[in-house]
């Protein structure tokens, strides 16, 4: 039987994607424009033997998902700007404690409480650098409702595989948009579970990487007993302030992601082979960029689009490769500073013709806005 396409909102698709990936614990604090994820989880989680826990704030929300993850759950939370700011400290704990979990940040217009119902893509650098202490992070960003689903699954897969928190950086546009989507059947999309220890319990060290660079993670309540701490720790999870240990540990947190960089960094390219103008976009603005590129081609301008699906780690190699042949680079993003543009400039150098097309007034960038600079 052919499965029926459904009209689904981006936020709902994220919730369904998470549950498809095996998420069975959601903790959160409602905030526009992410609240539909909480609402959907409050309905679905009790039906799949999962838990929906509405916490007192976003600090508690991320704390709860870390706790649940260590008890063996695939867990996640969803928020927007102000809540994401509150989550930073415990997000750092998830990095330090190597706790798999997913944080959905549906970006909205700031600064501060800003334009609460309007879209933005202005948390790019906060996602990367928002926490104190030097640390790496994975962030993915969907442009369609279908990608809301598939990247939610992918976010969990990365989180589980690499024992890291993963940010799914949506924006208000894609989160509130409804599109037709066919939900995949179980087994149709790959789902990865965390690696569990196989050594006898007395030999288990929760922070000792195996040959793949990743340490297996037991669950509280299993036969394995283990410690996790936000403070500097040794392989056994107990406090360890030795400089050599700290040096190794900080590097390890970065290296485990560096090693798999090529698998983590995902991009999509549209008509880039002969492109003289390369549009670089991510999230919902990709759609305006693609529409603009097609329109430009009708007018004889060879334009192509590079969509950054993975926002962090940054697509240095891919941008270098695609940008080399292009005469002109146009970066499309909904923030004032050109947070991605700066990265593109770092990669392609000051000589390159790089133009920023941006809006930061809560309004959506249109193909027309982009075509203006392609003339």
């Amino acid at each position, binding site marked *: 039987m052919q499965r029926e*396409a*459904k*009209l689904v909102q981006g936020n709902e698709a994220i919730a369904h994607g998470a549950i498809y990936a095996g998420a069975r614990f959601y903790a959160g604090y409602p905030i526009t424009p992410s609240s539909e994820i909480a609402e959907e989880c409050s309905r679905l989680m009790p039906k799949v033997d999962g838990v929906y826990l509405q916490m007192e704030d976003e600090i508690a929300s991320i704390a709860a998902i870390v706790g649940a993850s260590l008890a063996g759950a695939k867990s996640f939370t969803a928020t927007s700007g102000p809540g994401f700011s509150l989550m930073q400290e415990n997000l750092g704990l998830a990095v330090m404690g190597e706790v798999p979990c997913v944080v959905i940040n549906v970006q909205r217009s700031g600064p501060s409480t800003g334009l*609460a*119902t309007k879209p933005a893509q202005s948390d790019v650098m906060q996602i990367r650098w928002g926490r104190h202490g030097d640390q790496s992070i994975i962030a993915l960003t969907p442009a369609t409702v279908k990608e809301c689903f598939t990247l939610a699954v992918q976010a969990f897969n990365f989180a589980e595989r690499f024992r890291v928190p993963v940010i799914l950086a949506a924006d208000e*546009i894609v989160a*509130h*948009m*409804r*599109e*037709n989507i066919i939900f995949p059947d179980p087994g149709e999309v790959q789902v990865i579970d965390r690696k569990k220890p196989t050594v006898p319990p007395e030999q288990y060290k929760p922070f000792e990487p195996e040959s793949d660079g990743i340490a297996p993670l037991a669950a509280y309540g299993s036969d394995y007993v283990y410690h996790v701490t936000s403070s500097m720790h040794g392989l056994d999870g107990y406090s360890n302030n030795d400089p050599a240990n700290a040096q190794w540990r900080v590097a390890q947190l970065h290296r485990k992601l560096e090693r798999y960089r090529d698998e983590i960094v995902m991009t999509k390219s549209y008509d880039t082979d002969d492109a003289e103008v390369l549009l670089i976009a991510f999230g*919902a603005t990709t*759609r*305006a960029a*693609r*529409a603009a590129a*097609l329109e430009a081609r009708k007018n004889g301008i060879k334009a192509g689009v590079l969509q950054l699906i993975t926002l962090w780690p940054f697509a240095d190699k891919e941008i270098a490769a695609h940008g080399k042949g292009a005469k002109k680079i146009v970066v499309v993003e909904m923030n004032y500073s050109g947070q991605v543009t700066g990265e593109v400039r770092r990669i392609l150098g000051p000589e390159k013709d790089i133009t920023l097309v941006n809006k930061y007034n809560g309004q*959506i960038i*249109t*193909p*027309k806005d982009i075509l203006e600079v392609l003339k």
Partner: protein
Amino acid sequence: MKEQYEVIMAGSGGQGLVVCGIILAQAAILEGQNAVQTQSYGIASRGGFSKSEVIISRNEIMFQQVQEPDVILALTEQAMKMYASGEPDRPVFYDTTLLEKRSGRNLYGFPFTEMASLLGHVGTANIIALGAMATLTGMIKTDSLATVLTRRFAGKVADMNIKALQAGIELVTQD
């Protein structure tokens, strides 16, 4: 019939414009088309400017917002001012129960709300409008809209909505 139709439904929060857009998009999906529904709203759930946009297409929908609307529904003076003065060939439907009647060959004023309350519930005003818009533009089969309504609603509510749809269809076919 065109490959792609773009629709704007504008008014104020609480007028059911988002649901109306969803019904149109769902009907398009039933027909095997692609659909995107977006909305723009303010802080208030009730009142304040609200807009629901729908694009239905036989192709991939790239930019998600309406750029060149094929038909417009305006339910407040503010919405009417924003959209009625556009292209002379672009049909604009408006509710004469709520708005002053005005003339213009692209303006389709009908007492949607009054008709809806006679049918039993003012909430069906949008469905009357949708029936009229679908019939005039041919963007979607009204049967598809009816199927969505019977799936979405049950019993008396479904009957009322089907009547509303029919009333909307007749508004345009009578002309």
